[in-house]
């Protein structure tokens, strides 16, 4: 085990990216993720990497496209309004089948919204994140350690499946300080025969492009891409189950909402309510398998979110609406207290009887 150090989530993910072999970071400052850029600005020059503060979010994502096309591990980071600006580039990357890591440390929206934490970009992240038929891999950490761990995982998955990966955190995750242990991760060897690395006169040029001249061709690309998405859905669902073995009720929450909810679950257990929690770690692919299993055992579900109710739709789809699903939420930068979640659990139990 490496020595533990105290880090902000934003710093931890930045250092984790460096340790995972990322040497190309392109960004633009925005609260509450500015520490990522600040950290990269300090570290990258010392290790021969590239830190570039672009003139805009749009420029930054297009630089990521260039570096990714050249076969490099590239990343960018921003917060909600900045991610909206990047969405054109994200769609182009999906269309070009390029791997990269995009970090969204969410703040309240819509519009300029506010700088306090939020999970209201769930739809944007999981339903594509730009125009066209596509998906992003979406990973949702719930501790500073996991912020770091999921960075390497995200790069590996992105390269394995040739798709952009989004680390979907929130302002609390980015700003909170917790002890972390950072270790050099073994990079999964991933050949990139498609990368634009120069032909050296020995092969035909590779072409990276999202424009199809014929509609039949574009249709085929989309069909092929969605076949790949099916493999991702089959193999890469990740979730953590907490006290689910004998649970009659199930809380579903990710990120900071899961941290608060876990305290509420403990409080409910102390009152004799048999409740557990499923914490999705991959939001896309959504952990349907574990939820389907829970639907056979549990009487009701409670989705806890920092938005007006977005993930709840995926919960209902995952369990085929077999059981009632309640919503407990705060929005605008507010976080539900454990007491609020506990009250929602008690309400669910009362109505579920």
């Amino acid at each position, binding site marked *: 085990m490496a020595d*533990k*150090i*105290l*880090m*902000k989530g934003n*710093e931890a993910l930045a*250092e984790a990216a460096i340790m995972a072999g990322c040497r190309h970071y392109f960004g633009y400052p925005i*609260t*509450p993720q500015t520490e990522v850029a600040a950290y990269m600005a*300090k570290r990258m020059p010392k290790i021969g990497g590239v830190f570039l503060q672009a003139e805009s979010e749009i420029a930054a994502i297009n630089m990521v496209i260039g570096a990714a096309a050249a076969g490099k591990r590239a990343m960018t980071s921003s917060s909600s309004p900045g991610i909206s600006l990047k969405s054109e580039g994200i769609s182009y990357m999906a269309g070009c089948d390029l791997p990269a890591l995009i970090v969204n440390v969410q703040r*309240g929206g819509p519009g300029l*919204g*506010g*700088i*306090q*934490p939020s999970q209201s970009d769930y739809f944007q992240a999981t339903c594509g994140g730009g125009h066209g038929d596509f998906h992003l891999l979406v990973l949702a950490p719930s501790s500073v350690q996991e912020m770091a761990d999921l960075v390497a995982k995200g790069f590996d998955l992105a390269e394995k499946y040739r798709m952009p990966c989004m680390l979907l955190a929130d*302002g*609390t995750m980015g*700003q*909170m*300080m*917790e*002890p972390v242990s950072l270790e050099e991760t073994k990079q999964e060897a991933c050949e990139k025969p498609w990368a634009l690395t120069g032909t050296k006169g020995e092969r035909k040029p590779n072409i990276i492009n999202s424009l199809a001249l014929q509609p039949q061709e574009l249709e085929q690309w989309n069909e092929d891409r969605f076949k790949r998405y099916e493999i991702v859905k089959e193999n890469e669902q990740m979730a953590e189950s907490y006290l689910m073995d004998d649970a009659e009720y199930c809380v579903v929450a990710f990120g*900071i909402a899961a*941290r*608060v909810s*876990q*305290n509420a679950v403990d409080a409910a257990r102390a009152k004799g309510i048999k409740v557990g929690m499923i914490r999705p770690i991959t939001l896309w692919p959504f952990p349907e398998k574990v939820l389907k299993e829970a639907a056979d055992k549990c009487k009701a579900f409670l989705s806890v979110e920092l938005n007006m109710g977005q993930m709840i739709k995926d919960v209902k789809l995952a369990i085929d609406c077999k059981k009632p699903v309640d919503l407990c939420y705060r929005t*605008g*930068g507010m*976080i539900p*207290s*454990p007491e609020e979640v506990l009250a929602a659990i008690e309400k669910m139990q009362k109505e579920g009887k």
Partner: protein
Amino acid sequence: METRRITLLAGHYGSGKTNIAVNFALYLAGQGKQVTLADMDIVNPYYRAKDSAAEMEKAGVKMIASLYANSNVDVPALPQEMYAVTEDKARYAVLDVGGDDRGALALGRYAPEILKENDFHMIYVFNASRPLSRRAEDALEIMKEIEVAGGVPFTAIVNNTNLGKETTWETVTASMEEANKLSQISGLPLLFTAVEESVLPINERENEQYFPLKLQKTIW
């Protein structure tokens, strides 16, 4: 402990300046002094001194903070009443300066008055668990940058080495060598070592070398 009218807490961001400032203000108030706690942070969006506003009010500590602290906007503005810190010499003042040199920039506006009165402790908060300032040499570099930006020279060091909720007594004792080294190479006294109260062993509670900290509870 020797106290001066103005105590400034500065250092690398995330070193624990705010927690020390809040606890130090309470410590002074506990001695019957009239105390003002001023949040001078113009960088950090979350986890501000204002989180302890209710506790400060209860202890009779006057709080000066930006109207926009803990709000939904990024407005690096300080309120007009911040001038009271240097003007009202009947009160003790604890200043929570923003992190790094960027955070200390705002201090420059008040530096001439602070230097003129010359009754201050400018304290560097050292945390050996923070990745970019673990070594005394790195900390000294940050100290110099802060002095240039804030215009107030450091007069003392506080060791606040911690690992958040995973801090043990071992975390603290293991950091003493580096903290003493920083004291040595900077030529400044180590004023105290701050330790979360539940981590501080009973037999060390009377030891003035250690300063017990009460920390805010989180909901997660």
